[in-house]
Structure formats: C-alpha cells, structure tokens
C-alpha cells in the first residue's frame, strides 16, 4: 500500500529531515511510526499525502508513484487516503454532520448518499446523537472521533493518523485505537504516527522507528 524506496527529504537550509528511508506497508497491514519529536514522523506523513515532495527516492502509494503526480492530480491521490490529524482540523463554523460530509461533498456524492454514509460513519465512532452539534460543543475525544469519521467516510483503502491520541487520556486513547483496529480488520491499511510507546507495546503491531531522519527499526 505504501512503499518508500530510499527516500530523503531535505528542507532548504537545514540537514536531512529524512535520509535513505525504505520500507513497505502491505495492503491491509497496520503499523506504528514512532520516534522523538523532530525525528521525521511528520515529514514522512506529509510525503504520503503530498504536502511535501521527496528530495530523493520514490514514494509509491496505492500503486501511484508520487514523483509523477502533478499539482492537478494531487486531489485525486488525497481522496484515497483518510487522514486523522492531531489537531483534528475540523471546521468550526460547520456542524458535525457537515464536517464529516466534506470529503463526500468534494467527491460529488448525491445528498442522499452523503446522508447515508455520514450517518454510518458517525454511528461507527459512536457520535450518532451529535450530528447537529458544532465542534466547540464537543470534548477533545469527541472532536477526534469526528476527525476519524471524516477520514473514513470516503472508505479509503489507506488511513493515516498523526498523533491521534496526543491530547487524550489513556481510556480515550484505547477507544480511539480500538476504532483503528476495527477499520484495519475490515481491510483498511493503517499507519499511525505516535510517541505513546506504551500504547504501541499493547497493540503488538509492527513498529517503524525513526531516529534523526533514519529508519532504525521495523523495516521489514
């Protein structure tokens, strides 16, 4: 699903944020990406959703070589990747329903289909009764679940999460992780960047470890 082939990323005027990173994430696999702040986790994630481009090497996502994707083709690539952000990235002037519906609206689904899928996603994350609420009226954990619902409403084959439990207490973290596990069980490939090592240990999945831009564990 994701393949990094000797990828390096250098930001202008600084040392390599990623250097010679190679790994494979198989279809339907779930893995964690760990490392200290500044080890390159975010950069790696950004390369996958084309917020950044690799300086060297190739990133292949879902069979698409991202080096060959033009600016105009970026939206199509992003529609196949559900992303959960640490800061949720919700729109605060829209209610829960409209936030979750956004990817479907963009993809041009009919209102009826949008309604059906949004309700299904909200019920999956346990927020069926909150669809009319605005994000400010929700707790941090609920906001995160809205973010997850939005990431999966499109039924993407790949789900990325950047520190999805960063601001949550252990109990909520476990709930959120259970959701990711469920999505993985129904065939979605999942890559989660986190520095919550206890959680990673409990989940017992492959762990890709980054240190100063280099992959030092979990290559295979």
């Amino acid at each position, binding site marked *: 699903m994701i393949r990094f082939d000797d990828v390096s990323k250098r930001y202008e005027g600084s040392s390599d944020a990623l250097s010679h990173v190679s790994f494979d994430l198989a279809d339907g696999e779930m893995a964690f990406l760990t490392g200290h702040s500044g080890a390159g986790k975010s950069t790696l994630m950004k390369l996958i*959703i084309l*917020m950044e481009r690799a300086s060297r090497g190739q990133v292949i996502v879902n069979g698409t070589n991202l080096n060959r994707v033009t600016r*105009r083709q970026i*939206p*199509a*690539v*992003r*529609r196949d990747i559900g*992303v959960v952000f640490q800061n949720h*990235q*919700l*729109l605060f*002037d829209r209610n829960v329903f409209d936030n979750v519906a*956004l*990817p479907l*609206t*963009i*993809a*041009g*689904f*009919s*209102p009826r289909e949008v309604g059906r899928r949004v309700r299904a996603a909200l019920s999956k994350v346990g927020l069926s009764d909150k669809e009319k609420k605005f994000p400010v009226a929700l707790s941090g954990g609920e906001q995160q679940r809205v973010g997850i619902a*939005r990431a999966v409403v*499109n039924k993407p084959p790949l789900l990325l999460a950047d520190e999805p439990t960063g601001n949550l207490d252990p109990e909520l973290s476990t709930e959120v992780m259970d959701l990711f596990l469920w999505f993985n069980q129904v065939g979605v490939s999942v890559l989660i960047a986190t520095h919550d090592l206890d959680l990673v240990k409990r989940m017992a999945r492959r762990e890709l470890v980054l240190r100063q831009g280099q992959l030092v564990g979990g290559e295979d």
Partner: protein
Amino acid sequence: MAWIAHHQRISLSTLVELLKNPLGSLMTWLVIGIALGLPAILYVVLQNVSNVSGDWGGKPRVSLFLSESVSVHDAQTLSQKITLQAGVAQVRFISADDALLEFQHRSGFGEVLRTLDKNPLPHVVEVMATEKDPLNLSLLISGWESDPRVERVSVDLQWLERLFAILLFAERLVTALTVVLCLGLMLIMGNTISLAIENRRQEIEVVKLVGGTDGFVRRPFLYLGFWYGLGGAVFACLLLEISLLFLSAPVELLAQSYRDDFVLQGPGWAGIFALIGLGSVLGVIGSALAVSRHLADIEPS
C-alpha cells in the same frame, strides 16, 4: 444532478453567508452600485440627447429666403424644382403669410406686428438635404444662391456640427469613465474576495487536505463575487431610476425648447437586464482574478 444540486447549495449558502453580515454586504453593494450606476446614468442621458439630435439625423437644413418680388406661385414652382434635385430629402415651403402667423403665435409680438402695414417677412423654402459631403453641399447651395429669386441662403449646419462634436466627445468620455469605473469595480471585488479568502484560509487548507480540487475551492468565491456583482447592479439600477426621476424635470424643460414632445427615456427593461448582467459578470471576473492570485498560496502545512 448531484452536480447541479451542489451548485445550487453553494450559491445559496454563499448568499446566506452574505446576508448574515448585512451591514458589510450592504456597504460593498453600495460601492459597486455607485461604480456601476454613475456611467449608467451618464449613458442614459447621452442616449437621450442623441435621440433628440438624431431627429435631424445630422442632415443639413438649408433655408432659402426669397426676394420680396417673388410671387407665391413662383416660390412654389421653385420649391417643386428643388424637390426633384439630387441630394435633397425634403422641401417645405413657408409662405410669407404663414411665416407671419407662426411668428405672431410663437413670439408674442402679435400686437406689434399687427401695427405694421406690410408683412416684413419673405417667403422661405426650407430644404432638408441628404448630401453631407461639404463640397457637394456647397455646390448645391451655390446653385441656389445664383437663382435670381433667392435673396439669401442660410445654412444652420454649424451648430449641428458642433453638437455632434460635443456628443462624440461626451460619448468617448462616458466610455472612458465606464472602463475606469469597471476596472475600479473589479479591484474592489478582488479586494473583497481576497479578504473572504483570508478569512477562510483554514477551511481552504482542510478542503485541500481531504482532496478538494482547485475548482471546488474556487466555486464558493466565484458565487460570492456573483452575488456581490448582482446585488451591486441592483443598487445601480435603483440609483439610476432615482437619478432619472430627479433629472427628468429640468432635462425635459430644456429639451422641450427644441421639441415639444420630449420625455426623458429610462433605460428600459433591456437596459436594466444588461446592467445586472454586466454587474454579475464583472463580479465573477473580479473574484476569479483574486482567487487565482491567492489559491496557489494557500497550501496545507
């Protein structure tokens, strides 16, 4: 179908958003209304003046004052002869008696004129020429001048030429003003839309992150520009109608000294629709320019 529904929803929701901030939207609409309305007023007034002068159609009018000795019969023969000449559209014969009556009626000197023992006015042949070329016209005129029955020829062409020159100048002025104000309007629109884009920066980033195309991001702002333009044009129409109401009395008074039946013509429905269409199109163009300038800058980071 989903596509049409999507456009309907976007256009409506942008309108609702505008109406949620009525004071700000009203200000923008007024500014656009003034920028569109001013050239529209000038254009309509100009159109009216052109209509009045257009009755003469730029055709030179020549008056032949005949000698005192010429009889009515001879004068009529002459006027018939002129009618048949090339370059002549219309000939009106005004006998001395008719002229006196008309003068008495119009000038208010009726009593004074009645004290005269003899009609001081000559017979007049009024010729409307189709010939506009100055050389050919002067040939025609000199032909009439050489006729012994004709005492004097007067061409009231110069003031007409002057009027047309002024009209041409005014037309150019209005065109230039229209272009300048339309440019200003697009700048206003661009600025307003730029602000709207800046206010929704976070939303644009999120939309781009979840796979929104440039077109999807652009759409609400184009509709925003459309509504600004449309609303502005409606205000321009109001401004135009009110101004015409305000101007009609003095303008009609002035124009009726030339023509009895003059009424200030409004822009009509066609004009109103054209103005509204122009406003909407300019709104969309202005916002398209602003969006294309800013859209690439806003990338999720």
